[in-house]
């Protein structure tokens, strides 16, 4: 394994896994909890990326992330407005917003299709400078030279957001959002306004998607208009990998599962790159991973059934039906 795999590849796979896990958490809210197929993810991710990149270029790396967050809330709000107040089907609402966002994203990036942030300050350079100024040389060597500070920073961010999210889902509003996706009839009969809970849910989901895009912009020091393409499929794959492997349980465990799924997905992609899958085939590999991840639980169930059937049949034959 070590011959195929260097520590730095693993490290960057997990870094990416953590960053993208915010999108997966967003889909966890819209897809798993609210039971809504929100297809605005691609556009929303790029929106966060574009807003954060523009603000980072202007020299405000921290404001950039909050800007991305805000833009995501707006995007989620528009999607939910279309669904709950204008009667547009949820899938259609997502597609409409996604399409509209393309123009908006280009506009945010100053009508160019990519931005370069190589010379700008970002949360990563800030963390590096912080370590350099406040910690000893040993710490600098350990954290910065090996590049670990990036991983620690994104992991910290994601863990904090994950904890906040799991706390939020236990509040009155959070429980209402979960009930909305779980039992529509119950929600009608209790004092929950589903329009309200869907709006809040999609705003939170949009915020996390865009924040993920924002962090990615600073992480890879660039932003491209096509960055978000296929994001919804990838996030869905990670979500299903996480839910299949870690399983269902408490909210906190499910959230951990989602983050784990995202990291595992990035790891699989890294392996694919490492064994020299040509770059142009990567989308196909992604699609395959998604298909396998989604089909796996079903196949597993079938296999169990077939095995049971086989054992029962064998027993019957042995019993000797005369």
């Amino acid at each position, binding site marked *: 394994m070590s011959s195929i795999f260097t520590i730095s590849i693993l490290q960057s796979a997990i870094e990416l896994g953590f960053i993208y896990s915010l999108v997966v958490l967003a889909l966890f809210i819209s897809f798993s909890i609210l039971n809504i197929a929100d297809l605005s993810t691609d556009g929303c991710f790029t929106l966060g990326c574009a807003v954060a990149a523009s603000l980072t270029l202007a020299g405000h790396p921290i404001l950039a992330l909050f800007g991305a967050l805000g833009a995501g809330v707006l995007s989620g709000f528009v999607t939910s407005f279309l669904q709950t107040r204008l009667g547009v089907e949820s899938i259609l609402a997502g597609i409409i917003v996604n399409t509209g966002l393309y123009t908006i994203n280009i506009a945010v990036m100053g009508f160019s299709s990519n931005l370069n942030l190589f010379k700008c300050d970002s949360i990563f350079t800030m963390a590096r400078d912080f370590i350099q100024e406040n910690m000893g040389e040993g710490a600098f060597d350990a954290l910065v030279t090996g590049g670990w500070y990036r991983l620690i920073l994104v992991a910290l961010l994601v863990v904090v957001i994950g904890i906040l999210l799991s*706390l939020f889902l*236990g509040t*009155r509003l959070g*429980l209402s959002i*979960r009930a909305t996706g*779980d*039992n529509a009839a*119950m929600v009608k009969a209790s*004092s929950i306004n589903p329009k309200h809970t869907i709006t809040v849910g999609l705003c939170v989901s949009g915020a996390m998607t865009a924040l993920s895009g924002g962090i990615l912009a600073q992480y890879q020091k660039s932003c491209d208009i096509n960055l978000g393409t296929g994001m919804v499929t990838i996030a869905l794959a990670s979500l299903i990998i996480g839910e299949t492997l870690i399983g*269902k349980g408490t909210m906190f465990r499910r959230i951990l599962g989602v983050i784990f799924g995202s990291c595992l997905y990035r790891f699989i992609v890294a392996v694919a790159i490492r064994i020299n899958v040509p770059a142009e085939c990567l989308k196909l590999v992604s699609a395959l991973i998604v298909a396998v991840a989604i089909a796996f639980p079903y196949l597993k169930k079938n296999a169990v059934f077939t095995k049971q059937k086989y054992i029962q049949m064998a027993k019957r034959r042995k019993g000797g039906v005369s």
Partner: protein
Amino acid sequence: MLELKDISKTFYPGTINEKKALIHLNVSLADGDFATIVGSNGAGKSTMFNAITGAFYVDEGEIILDGEDITFKQEHRRSLDIGHLFQDPQLGTAPHMTIEENMSLAYLRASNKTHGFFGRSRKKEKAMFQEQLALLNMGLEDRMKQPVGLLSGGQRQALTLLMATMVTPKLLLLDEHTAALDPATAEKVLELTKDIVEKRKITCLMVTHNMNQALELGNRTLMMDSGHVVFDVSGKERAVLTVEDLLGKFKENAGKQLDTDRILLS
């Protein structure tokens, strides 16, 4: 407590499927009244409940709850004051949320003046949930962390009843809430209903197809047919009424036999 004044509702008006579900219906419930409702299929019992909860707005008439005109109040706003149980035990609880989460939700929603959007249920309240579950004698108090989807129909219905009455509602609507349960469980849930309603003096309407139940439970019986009340009995007159009398009264007032395909006479 509850007053339905001259309410009417027609579904699919002007089409071949036109159905006059409620026709100038008048019902008035005093504080603490527990009325049972019997009537043939399509008599408008569930439609009346849906009119009260606000699943649709009535075409004509007024609905007044505790002195407040709620005729055009939105459904989710009304349900703060109204508990509603359905025949199907699946409808009242969220299957993928744990018992504790379901109860927290019901508690936090109903007591929304003291709990904001970000209110959470505390240890003390969770202990209270557990106490209430223990009263059911179903062993649910040890299964607080399990998803509700794993419970049986009777357990879910009992839980729904607890949730609907956790903060005493102004009005409790029971739409044949024991009809889908096996006899023993149905009996248990019914006992529990009686207990809670009597102890807390909740104003309650209960639809049933069991004629004995209709006379035994509560202090009043309403019979409905084609969108209005044909017979309303309470007090002494009700105390001496038998099932045969009730059927007779129905025939007398509605001009036809009570259809007996689902009616339980004994």
